Each structure stands twice: as C-alpha cells, then as structure tokens.
C-alpha cells in the first residue's frame, strides 16, 4: 500500500508540474498581448508598458517560467490587480465554502445514487429503472445554475427555510445556506454516478461469485452487503475520480448562482475584473484539486479492491 501510494503521489506531482507549465503557457502563448488584455482597450501605451514590466513580461520566457514556478512553490500567487489584497490570502479565506460544498455534495451523491441504483437494479426494466435512465439523459441537459434558480423559486421562496443566496456566520446558518447548493451540485452528478452504479451492479449480480454466495445460503441484504455492493463500487469510484472536473466546474456555477463566497465565485469575479493573478492562481489551485481528487479516488479503489495493488 505504501509503495502504491508513493507511486501515485509521484505521478500526481508530475501532472501538477505539467499543469503549472501549462498554466504559464496559457498566458504566454495565446495570441495577443497579455498586458494589453489586462489593461483593457482604454489604457494608454504607458499604462500597458507599466503592467508589462509589473508582470515581468519583459524578461525572456525561460526566466519568466522559472520565476513563476518559484513563486508558486513558495505559495506566492501575487496580489490582486488593484493591489488591495494578496491572492493566496483570498484563496485561504474563500476555500472553506467550496470545500463545504464539495464534501456535502459528494456525500449526498453517494447516498442518492446508491439508493437509486440499487432500487433500479432490484427490478430491471421497471419504473425506477426507467426513471434512472431517463433522468440520465434529461439531467445532462439541465444547466446546474438554472436548476439552482428553480430551487430558489420553488423551495426557498415559498418556505423561507433557506436563504436566497449568500453565506452565514454561524454553523446553523451555513448549514442552511449549503443545502440548496448541495442539492444542485448533486443533481448534476447523479446522472453519471447512478448510471455507472446501475451498470456495474447488474454486471456483478450476474457474476459467478454471487451465485457462489447464494449457494451457501446468502440472500437479500447480506448478499448485497457482502458480495454485491463493494464489488460494484469499484468502477463507480473510479468514474467518480474522473468526474473531479465536473465537480469542481459545478462549484463555479453553483457558487455564482447562490452567491456563495467560495473559490468558484472568486474565479468568475477575477475573470470579469480581468485580474491575471487571481485567474492564474485559481486555475492552478483547481487543477491541483483535480489531482488530489484523482489520488483520493485511486486510494479508495485500492482499499475497495484488493486486486488493484498488484497492477
């Protein structure tokens, strides 16, 4: 297990380095003058030049890359364009919201898709099963931000149980504030996970070791718990890890919809305000998030399936 973990961590670091270089290249090799882009069309030539100097764009590319990597390793993401605050500090302030949202959504997704898939599999081709398949195709067509708004209209407004957007100071307020965003994000993940779980459960149910389990008298819940569940989870967890991008993308939209002060919101505001350091820093943070997500997924798969370590 240790060796396996170590190898995966090293792979993760390799991808991270590639991502850092790519994020640098993003600003470097895209057509147009980044300084001009940042300054906007109304800036004078002198202002553009000042920004260029400020961004270190007058150095040669290798030096720039080296400086950039060095800064990131030290956790220095620079300051916001208006100079008011430090990007790393801002990230530190905003990440808990995003983390809350992600963790609660993952838990809810796991519960709902397990319940849906196992009841769909119990009677293939019947109502629940069809429902799962239909929501799979319609679900993808529902923009998550719109679903969030519909929840605000249909649930938050008439009941008054949940705030119409915004975060809270106390634990209770935060809990209430995260409910609808969490449901929204979960809804965008369910189509993927439920379908995958359904498929793998059907497959596992047909396998010979389940027949062997039956042959020693297991049935119903014990058979499901000891023989079917864990084996069907393996491919879904693997898929889950590959959905990291969807999860993190989802937080951007969901935070914007519900006015949650998290990293996604920060990214969007940064892009609207044309703030290079914010966008670049968050791109790196989110990409690192994907890598961590994948790593955790790999570890969970390895814990679930003893055969994995050998590969």
């Amino acid at each position: 297990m240790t060796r396996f973990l170590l190898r995966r961590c090293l792979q993760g670091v390799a991808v991270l380095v590639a991502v850092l270089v790519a994020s640098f290249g993003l600003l470097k090799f895209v057509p147009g003058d980044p300084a001009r882009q940042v300054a906007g069309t109304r800036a004078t030539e002198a202002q553009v030049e000042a920004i260029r100097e400020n961004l270190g764009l007058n150095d040669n590319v290798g030096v720039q890359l080296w400086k950039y990597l060095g800064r990131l390793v030290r956790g220095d993401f620079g300051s916001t364009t208006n100079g008011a605050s430090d990007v790393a500090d801002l990230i530190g302030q905003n990440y808990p919201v995003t983390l809350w949202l992600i963790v609660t959504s993952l838990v809810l997704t796991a519960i709902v898709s397990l319940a849906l898939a196992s009841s769909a599999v119990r009677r293939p081709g019947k109502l629940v099963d069809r429902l799962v398949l239909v929501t799979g195709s319609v679900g993808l067509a529902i923009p998550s931000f719109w679903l969030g708004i519909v929840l605000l209209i249909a649930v938050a407004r008439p009941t008054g149980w949940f705030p119409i957007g915004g975060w809270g100071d106390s634990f209770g307020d935060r809990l209430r504030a995260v409910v609808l965003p969490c449901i929204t994000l979960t809804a965008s993940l369910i189509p993927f996970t439920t379908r995958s779980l359904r498929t793998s459960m059907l497959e596992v149910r047909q396998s010979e070791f389940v027949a062997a389990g039956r042959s020693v008298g297991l049935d119903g819940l014990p058979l499901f718990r000891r023989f079917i569940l864990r084996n069907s989870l393996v491919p879904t967890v693997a898929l889950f890890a590959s959905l990291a991008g969807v999860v993190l993308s989802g937080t951007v939209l969901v935070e914007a919809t519900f006015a949650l002060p998290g990293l996604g919101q920060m990214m969007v505001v940064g892009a609207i305000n044309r703030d290079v350091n914010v966008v670049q820093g968050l791109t790196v943070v989110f990409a690192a998030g994907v890598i961590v997500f994948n790593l955790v997924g790999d570890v969970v798969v390895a814990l679930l399936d003893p055969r994995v370590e050998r590969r």
Partner: protein
Amino acid sequence: MNSRSRRRVDPLLATGLGIVAVVLLLGIIAPLITSHDPLAQNVRARLASPSGDHWLGTDLLGRDVFSRILHGARIDIPLALVATLVPAVIGTLLGTVSGYYSRRVDAIIMRFADVVQAFPVYIFLVALVFLLGPGARSFVVASACISWVGYARLVRAEVSRLKSRDFIVAARAAGIGDRRVLGRHLLPNVMPQVYAYMASDAVLALVALASLSFLSLGVQPPEPEWGRMIADGVDRIRSEWWLSAVPGLAIVIVGTGFSLIAFGLERQASRR
C-alpha cells in the same frame, strides 16, 4: 445493410431531431410570430406581468420576454453547433493521426490531451475566455481548445482497434494507400460513433454557452441569449420568477433534443 433498414430512422433520433428543428424554426420565423423587437426597450412598461400583448411579460428594461426567448434560439443553437463542430473536426483529425501513424506523434498528442483534461472544464473555459475576452468568438475558440480531446481519444481508440482487423490489414497489404484506407475503410466505420459523441457534446456546449453567458463571460448584452436572460432575471426571482425560469426551460428542451439524438445515434451505431 439493405436500403430499407437504412431508411428506417431510430424513433429517439427522430424525436430529438424534431425537437431541435422545431425550436430552431421558431427562432427563424420569430418576426412572424411576434411583432415585438427583442431589443426594443420601454422603461415605462418594465417588469410587466404576462398579458395578451406580452405573453411572458417584459424584463427589467421593458423588453418583450417571449420575443427574446424566440430570438434566443437564433443565438444559442447555432453557437452550440459551431462549438461542437470545430472541436469535432480538430479532434477527429488528431485522433486519426494519433491512432494510425507513428507512435511519437501519438505520444505528443496524448500528453497534450492529458494536460487539457487535468483542468476542470469550466475553470479552463473561464481562464481561456479571460484571455480572449468575453464573447461568442472566444467561446467557440475555448471550446475548440478543450473539447477536441474527447474526439481524439474516441477516434484514436477506434482507429487503432480497427487497424489490426483483417479487412484493413488486407487492404494495406494489397498496396492501397494510407489515404484511401483511411477514407474508404477506416473512417466510415468510426464516424457513426463520432456523430453520436457530437450530439452528446452539443448538449454540453449548449449548457456551457448558457453558463458562460450567465457568468457574464459569454454572449454580451443586449443580445437575447438564454443564459444571459436567466442571469438578468435572478434579482427578480422573489416576484417575477418566470424571467429566469422560462429561458432555462428553453435550454432544457433543446438540450434534451440533442440528448435524444445522441441516444438514437448511439443505438444505431451499436446496431451496425
């Protein structure tokens, strides 16, 4: 396959095509259906409730919402299609090269694909649009930069699987040139799956366009784009909730149409 079974269209595919075609048509003939200019502001008639004159009421600037939704079809559907087509062409080409030709080119292309996929889609979209400046053109370029990966992987896998099949090996052994083998034998077997993937990608493109516009990074006001309209209505959901709800419904309808097309094409592709 005989001509009769070729002519029979999958019912899901037909339904999906029907839905998209109808909405697109409604967008095209919008001026015939409604006399309101989607851009005409009327501050005195702002936030009017639905009535005989304004079927879905008016927005914050007094523009007719029904007219804007119909005209939205002219923006959202074509843009989603272009943002699907461009990466599809690029990805298919790169995937073919990757699967058919040398290992070194393959390795380079696939490492690029890995890096692209290391970023969450929307983060990458936002970052690219940030660089290129908001707008429809940036959206298409950004989509091209991101979505080609799916096609490249799909085509690469299929091409390298088919490459070792008897009929391809035979064709190559018979001295038929690479281009002919690819054009006549390989790609015809791969394209049905690419089409199915395109349809499901169109769903994502449609939603991505609306999402970016919702975030003020896509199509810019005053154009009647659906995602932008949802954003415009957000502040009024306590009272005029339909301002946000209805444009979203339009997206869901068209998206479901694309989804059904994808399902139908997938079924047809797997039946062959």
